[in-house]
């Protein structure tokens, strides 16, 4: 029977991607709300399940739904904040793909610096970084989820890495070692 087949196929296939959906949601809206967002995305997937013609496309389809749900999730939160902060609309932070400081690594200064630097990136660069390194997606998957070409994702990722490298580079000391070496080499 069609209904039971649909139910069986959904129950058998979609849970396989729970991990990927969870990682994407956690990277985009934070671990605290990720489970609820995945639940929501799964509900939407279930409602549209019979329209999915290509079973090979399940993973990108589910990831795109998850990203869209997360986008609404954050937009809704931001909308609520704006409703209560009408005088400060410009100061509402961009909450999309902001990494939380992990309490478990609060003593890990390097990790905190890294996440702070990621959070300081522009939104379009930040989202590809968190989806690549914190959700574990490749450029093609990120492109599918964000509806941009994979080449654009690679380009953004490269720019993001350059900016991160610049932000995380140690400040130059007054007597850089390289300068001394250079001087020694020439003398």
């Amino acid at each position, binding site marked *: 029977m069609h*209904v*039971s087949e*649909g*139910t*069986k196929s*959904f*129950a058998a296939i979609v*849970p*396989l991607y*729970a*991990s*990927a*959906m*969870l*990682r994407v949601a*956690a*990277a985009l809206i934070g*671990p605290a709300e*990720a*489970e609820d967002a*995945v*639940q929501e*995305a*799964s*509900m*939407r997937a*279930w*409602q*549209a*399940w*019979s*329209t999915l013609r290509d079973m090979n496309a399940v993973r990108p*389809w589910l990831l*795109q*739904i998850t990203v*869209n*749900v997360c986008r*609404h999730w954050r*937009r*809704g939160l931001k*909308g609520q904040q*704006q*409703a209560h902060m009408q005088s400060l609309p410009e100061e509402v932070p961009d909450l999309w793909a902001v990494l939380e400081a*992990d309490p*478990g*690594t609060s003593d890990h200064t*390097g990790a905190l610096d*890294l996440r702070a630097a990621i959070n300081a990136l522009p939104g379009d660069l930040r989202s590809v*970084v968190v989806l*690549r*390194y*914190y959700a*574990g997606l*490749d450029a093609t998957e990120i492109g599918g989820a964000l509806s941009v070409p994979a080449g654009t*994702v690679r380009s953004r*990722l*490269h720019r993001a*890495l*350059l900016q991160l490298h610049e932000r*995380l580079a140690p400040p130059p000391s007054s007597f850089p070692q390289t300068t001394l070496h250079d001087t020694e080499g020439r003398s």
Partner: protein
Amino acid sequence: MNDEPNSRNHHKEELEADMSLPPESPELPELAALTARLTSDGARWQSRLPDPAHVAEHIRDIAQESPRAASEEAPVMAVDLTSRPEGDRRAPRPDHRHRAPAGPGGRFLGLIAAVVVVALLATLFLRLANPGRATGPGTLPTPTQTQPAPTPTTPPATATSTPTTYPVLVYFSKHPDSLNDPTAVFPVQRVAPTSAVATFAIQQLVAGPTVEERSAGLFSELNSIFIAPSECDAGSNPTQGGPDFTLTLNKKGSTTEQGTATLQFCRPTSSPGIGADARIKAEIDKTLTQFSTITKVVILTRSGHCFGDESGLDLCLK
């Protein structure tokens, strides 16, 4: 519990496969250390996420607890929960709320009904005085095509029947029925002071149920999804703001399709959730398909995408 052992293995393999991917084009050698650091922190981040097996269990429950999902029945418009076959639809309950009971309570309800009638007459008067505008501040749709003419299928007229008014039904959700079945909607009567009955009916849906109707459990989340002002042309009176939506007949999006009405929101929306989306779609769908000239409804967001379709595929336009 995980009665599908392969799924967990799959997660592990998938994660390992992902993490073993080479960094995305770290052409500059100085970026290699950075990508390694990102990969390491990403792995640490992922190790602290909720158990995916627990999430997978919930996903399985979704299908098993909702065996009557509309998508099972609808070949194309699967996201549209209102696409269930007629025989499977919950029949609208007859509206008994306006039947005045005997006694003092009945007189009180009669008084409220009289106030509503006066308000409707005042609305009619204002409309006749300003024929170029739709009614109601902030909720003024501008029909982009001729509205469907009232048909004999419209409900019996109430006491306010005049040659220039048209009774229409507006379908709201109701506690607790619509929380269990988002497609369950319940009609109330309104009197349209104009032949643009479809636009008027949706305006009334946006305005929400009356106090009396709310106390009977009726509700609509339609108004609560708007998060910004109208971006549509305010017409001849810009001080009142643009309409909440436009309604176009015989169009599926931009494509001509007889019998299909396209409702597009003029205001950016934010979805409160899958249940609310489904209820809003059911309310709009049932309210518009009461008119014989509308057999199918397409609901679009301000940006032109299918409302409630998080797949991004815009299935309602296919």
